[in-house]
């Protein structure tokens, strides 16, 4: 007892002094907004995994001895709340940068503000087309390939490998559907006349059977299906019912094996093509691959409560890695200007969970860091790589 008490006091005193000795310098504050509550809360896995990753970086010594303090606030998936939280992060907490802020309208809401404040706004969780505009918004750097890029990937694939097939397009009649079209046409180039028919549906329609039947009648050999998951599943089923043997392309946002392919019927989904940029944790191809093994070990140790099979976890992990990379490269001069210099001059940065062949690459007048996607095909129960040249 007598021995224990001084020991305990010493421990407390040490604990109080220790952070001062250990860091000696301030922490590096990284700000983030996430829908931890509200209708978008499923996405918050991204924020939790980012936090866990920065914990790991700190355990391993931080950025040149400085710890990363990741401040991630709930915006309830409401854009005005995002504005408030972003202002809290920038004006109160004085974060060095924002990273991985989530949501298209949410980032649009703070887009002008962060640029006016000249705060780096990096690796945004949004598929919007607005994040590669360095002339007007020099402080914003996006993340995943936008719909335009994705459309272009499909277009050039078709122009090269199915140059003589007629193309039918099914499209949700809103910006989501429309955002792909320009890219597809650009990718098709002079084969754009192959598009013989375009059918639209409203997101409120109960079914799209009629549209599929009409597209089938055109005799097209390719179906580009720019729909959202529920309708994608319906379309897959209807195409199978009609016994329509078609090269079927679905957007990556509707390519969830569990939410689309299983309800539509695994047997009906064979051969469907989509594009991806990250490794899917359920894909058997990566089961024993180092990047994925490390990821699983990380998840088990630092984020045991998060879902290691979810693609959101992979996104959070990769975003945090990209942010860490930028901080490491800018570590000698951690100013906002220098952070932007690094973040807009990424050259061949490898991230373990990007698909092979993809890396972060941008330059000051074209800041989108991930510029390409790879085609994958549904085989068996999951997505598998395929080489378009060899089919």
């Amino acid at each position, binding site marked *: 007892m007598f021995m224990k008490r001084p020991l305990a006091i010493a421990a407390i005193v040490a604990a109080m002094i220790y952070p001062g000795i250990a860091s000696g310098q301030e922490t590096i504050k990284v700000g983030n907004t996430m829908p*931890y*509550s*509200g*209708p978008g809360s499923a996405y918050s896995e991204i924020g939790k995994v980012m936090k866990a990753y920065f914990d790991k970086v700190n355990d391993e010594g931080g950025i040149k001895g400085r710890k990363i303090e990741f401040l991630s606030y*709930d915006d*309830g*998936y*409401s*854009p*005005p709340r995002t*504005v*408030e939280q972003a*202002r*809290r992060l920038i*004006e*109160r907490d004085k974060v060095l940068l924002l990273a991985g802020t989530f*949501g*298209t*309208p*949410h980032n*649009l*809401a703070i*887009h*002008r*503000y962060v640029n006016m404040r000249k705060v780096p706004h990096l690796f945004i969780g949004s598929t*919007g087309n*607005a994040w590669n505009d360095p002339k007007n918004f020099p402080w914003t750097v996006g993340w995943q390939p936008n719909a335009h890029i994705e459309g272009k990937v499909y277009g050039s694939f078709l122009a090269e490998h199915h140059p003589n097939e007629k193309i039918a397009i099914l499209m949700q*009649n*809103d*910006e*989501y559907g429309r955002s792909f079209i320009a890219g597809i046409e650009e990718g098709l180039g002079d084969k754009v006349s192959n598009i013989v028919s375009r059918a639209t549906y*409203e*997101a*409120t329609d109960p079914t799209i059977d009629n549209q599929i039947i009409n597209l089938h009648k055109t005799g097209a050999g390719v179906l580009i299906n720019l729909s959202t998951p529920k309708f994608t599943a319906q379309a897959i089923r209807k195409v199978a019912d009609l016994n329509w043997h078609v090269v079927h392309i679905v957007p990556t946002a509707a390519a969830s094996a569990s939410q689309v392919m299983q309800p539509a019927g695994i047997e009906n989904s064979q051969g469907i093509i989509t594009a991806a940029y990250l490794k899917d944790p359920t894909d058997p191809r990566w089961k024993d691959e180092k990047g994925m093994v490390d990821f699983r070990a990380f998840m088990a140790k630092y984020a045991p409560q998060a879902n290691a099979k979810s693609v959101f976890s992979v996104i959070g992990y990769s975003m945090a890695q990209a942010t860490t990379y930028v901080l490491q490269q800018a570590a000698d001069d951690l100013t906002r200007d220098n952070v932007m210099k690094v973040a807009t001059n990424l050259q061949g940065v490898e991230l373990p969970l990007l698909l092979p062949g993809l890396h972060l690459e941008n330059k000051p007048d074209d800041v989108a860091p991930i510029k390409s996607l790879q085609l994958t095909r549904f085989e068996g129960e999951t997505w598998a790589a395929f080489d378009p040249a060899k089919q």
Partner: protein
Amino acid sequence: MALTDTIHTQAPPTLKAIIGGLIAVAAIAVPFLLDGFQVFQATQVLVLAIAIMGLNLLTGFSGQFSLGHGAFFAAGAYVTAFFLTDGSFPYVGAVLIGGVVCFILGLAFGFPALKLDGIYLALATFSLAVAMPQILKLSILTEWTGGVGGLVLMKPEAPQGIPLDADQWLYFVVLAFAAVLYCLVTGLISGRTGRAFLAVKDNPLAAEAMGIRVTNVKVLAFGYSAMITGVAGGLSALVTAYVAPDSFTLFLSVNILVGLVVGGVGFIPGAIIGAIFVHFMPTAADSVYQGLQGVIYGIVLIAIMLLAPKGIGGLFRR
């Protein structure tokens, strides 16, 4: 509801004037004592208080329920944003147009609402709140609403020669709106119309027997209420400088209602208390224990209902 609920003894006039003066001084001092972010928060609270005041006029004084005031808030915000996207239209005018549009919407919704009472009216307005974000996303309206992406507008700056930054200026703009609307509402309540509202709320049959046109009064209450909430929406668009469908979900309507109940139904100054609660409680709950913020929020709300059944504002009334 009993008559005694809404008729209460007034505080002595001198005391009232002193309290009013102190509040006015405090309200004007706020932007000079706080930093930019806090001024921004205070402005948001004021906006919310105006919206709650709008609902209070409807629920507290004419006895009609609404779970859909977020929809009027959204309409006011969108109309305002629509006029301000290119930055040439005067912003006060845009907010006022938003208010007028909401007045018309309120009247239009007030008519069918006449047939419904109490909880049924609450459900009908609820459907309005549920439908609003989807309506705003409709592709045929995209040209005006900006679809899912919403609309970005120019944030008003202080006029030349006034040494205030944008946050402080906006605070005073919103404060001026709040003060004018507060005077209008208190004037309305203490006058003929207000007594008609109360009579209809307390006993529609008796009111009708006294020669009050119950239909007109109810519809008018809906119109005024929607207008005030619409003005709040318009101001919120100025403050955030951005509107999007996801800003106006069902949660907003629920928040306005919670603010009303916490502040005190039928007590106009209670709106500010309700707004402070609604605005800061989620963050406060979050800082107590992340992951259980909803539970903490709920417990606090229940505690308030038990300890102050007439809302926190009710504690200040005798």
